[in-house]
């Protein structure tokens, strides 16, 4: 095993996918000559050629729809929408075609499509480029939604997704690309059904996904030194949600904080909190807390962006108030 960056893990996953199956091809904005906005497909154009590494015009609705069509037509497309911010233009194709055709056609068609996109804020690129909307996608029945937070998941989830007969959406938090992590080769191919306890604890459960995992772990470290043992649960998969792992943790700790970079109202954290309440109500020793983004367009200046986003300090504060400290 060794340390690699999240970016390199994504690239390794993509390369293995392209090498292992001739039907696999990569399509998206600047994935070819430019090598990918986050350099996840650097060198691929030379290695695999323009037929299988396709730069697209800036036409999100069309090239995502084309991905759906190609999947229906027998190919195994991987579509890269540069960021979730631009995927809004393709929501119609995603909701009304990708997620719906199988069910609506009475099971006649399946759409083996993988769509990858960056998500999240933290790089001061202002409101229109800083959305965290995985929660919207997790609302849509008919697709699978993944949030790889670790290097191993970044490396393994794409390959596992390519085994799925139905559409899979992978959200890679933009902040993670340059971060290094330990790649656990033995875990490949990764499972796509279960959440993971990244740090065991007994007093409180910190439940999160994607880019916020590292903030939760940092908070857990701070809490450890105050004698509070926090368990950190990485959801990994937003749909279908593995609520049983979450409940096992909450039943042990009796307290839960859900951390989600989406805006608080109607956030994915709200769904997790509701499911905890519905099933583990009698195990709760306090209300489920949520740490989400302040409900404003994410501002450009760093001090405002930091104030708007979930932070380890906010998580620690929530734990303190829950524990009556």
């Amino acid at each position: 095993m060794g340390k690699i960056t999240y970016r390199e893990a994504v690239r390794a996953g993509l390369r293995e996918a392209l090498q292992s199956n001739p039907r696999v091809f990569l399509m998206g904005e600047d994935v070819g000559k430019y090598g990918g906005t986050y350099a996840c497909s650097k060198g691929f154009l030379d290695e695999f050629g323009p037929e299988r590494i396709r730069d697209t015009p800036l036409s999100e609705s069309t090239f995502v729809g084309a991905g759906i069509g190609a999947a229906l037509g027998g190919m195994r497309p991987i579509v890269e929408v540069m960021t979730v911010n631009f995927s809004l233009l393709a929501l119609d194709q995603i909701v009304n075609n990708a997620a719906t055709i199988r069910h609506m056609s009475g099971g006649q068609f399946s759409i083996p499509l993988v769509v990858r996109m960056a998500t999240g804020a933290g790089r001061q690129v202002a409101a229109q480029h800083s959305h965290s909307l995985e929660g919207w996608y997790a609302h849509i029945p008919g697709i699978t939604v993944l949030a790889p937070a670790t290097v191993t998941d970044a490396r393994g989830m794409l390959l596992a997704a390519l085994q799925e007969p139905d559409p899979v959406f992978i959200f890679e938090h933009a902040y993670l690309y340059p971060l290094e992590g330990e790649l656990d080769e033995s875990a490949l191919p990764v499972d796509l059904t279960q959440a993971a306890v990244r740090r065991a604890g007994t007093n409180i459960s910190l439940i999160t996904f994607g880019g916020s995992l590292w903030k939760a772990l940092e908070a857990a470290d701070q809490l450890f030194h105050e004698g509070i043992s926090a368990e950190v649960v990485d959801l990994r998969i937003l749909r279908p949600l593995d609520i049983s792992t979450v409940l096992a943790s909450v039943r042990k700790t009796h307290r839960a904080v859900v951390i989600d970079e989406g805006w608080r109202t109607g956030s994915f954290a709200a769904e997790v909190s509701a499911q905890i309440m519905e099933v583990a109500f009698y195990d709760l020793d306090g209300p489920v807390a949520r740490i989400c983004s302040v409900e404003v367009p994410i501002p450009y200046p760093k001090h405002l962006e930091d104030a708007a986003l979930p932070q380890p300090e906010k998580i620690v504060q929530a734990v303190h108030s829950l524990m009556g400290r």
Partner: protein
Amino acid sequence: MAEFVMPTLGSDMTEGTLVEWKKKLGDRVVKGDIIAEVDTEKAAIEIESFHTGVIEQLLAKPGERIPVGTVMAIIREVGTQATPAIQAPASPPPLQKVSPKEPVSPPPPPPPPMTAAVTEPGRLRISPAARKLASELGVDPAFVQGTGPGGAITLDDIQRSANARGERHEAGGQQPSAPLTTGPTPLASAGEGGDRQARMRQTIAAAMARSKREIPHYYLSTTIDMGRAMTWLKEENIKRPVTDRLLYGVLLIKAVALALRQVPELNALWKENAAIQSPAIHVGVAVSLRQGGLIAPAIHDTDKRSLGDLMSSFQDVVKRARAGTLRSSELSDPTITVTSLGEQGVETVFGVIYPPQVALVGFGKVVERPWVIEGQVVSRPVVTASLSADHRVTDGHRGGVFLSAIDRLLQEPGQL
């Protein structure tokens, strides 16, 4: 009879306005004939009849706004009897809405959850887990100080109050006092903590007074060599992890229980002027509550249980006694009581029997004493065991046999 109702005229259309009837009362109408013209926000639409027959009644009037699904006319299908005309009331009855698609107005959105606001009076702010624990431990949350968010009562609060609750009684005397009367432990009764202590005291006083009044006590004591027991215990505990270690008190309890098999008369309850031997042996263990006060819950079937099992239930009983969360059954049916006051420095206990029991065994502290073994004077750890017994039920002879049985049993700790 067939009803002609306002049809759905568009996915978003909930009602239409009758422009005019295209048929009159008594007219024949064939399925597919235009029977009326209705106006929606989008357009005027001619509506066909889905039945063939004769128009019996026209319930709607032009210009009226009619929700989808409302009965607008009655058609007597061909060949059926004319029904007696439904009396058209003087003023047209309000057309009752039968449309299943009538969207039920969504319930008002739940009020935003009140965070720190106090819930309505009388309703306790307590977490679900804490409420569950409170019921399990028999703690009345009404008297618990909440430290959770907004003053809510948490698991810790319940646990802490349970642990502390026993302590709120004024310091009791050294004398082991009678267990409290049967029935749910009075500790759980309502009322301020303070007067609960007073009530506990009153109950103990009544029992002790009755005991002294009614029971002719005789007292016997003997000194027992604890050497073998203590050595055996030391070796045994080395083998056991810390969580399973034994205290010497457990040996004493087991010895008493096994001795009762040999002298069952002491394992009886005095009811209606007669001692009724108890088929089972439940040794009541006197537990001092930290700020005074005493309680003697039973360890059921004491004689049949291993030392390890006895130790864990001994620990459990002590913990719950001090938390004031004992089950009532445990308080009501010890068949004998054992009290050990060694840690308080007492050498010999002259105890008062707990009615309706007929005996009480007391143990003092273990002390090093000169002791003669095979003519040699050696130093041995010894303890004074004493018996208070009801002379109505047994005589000193049986009491003596009982005490020596305890002594013999303690010389073979391995067999306990």
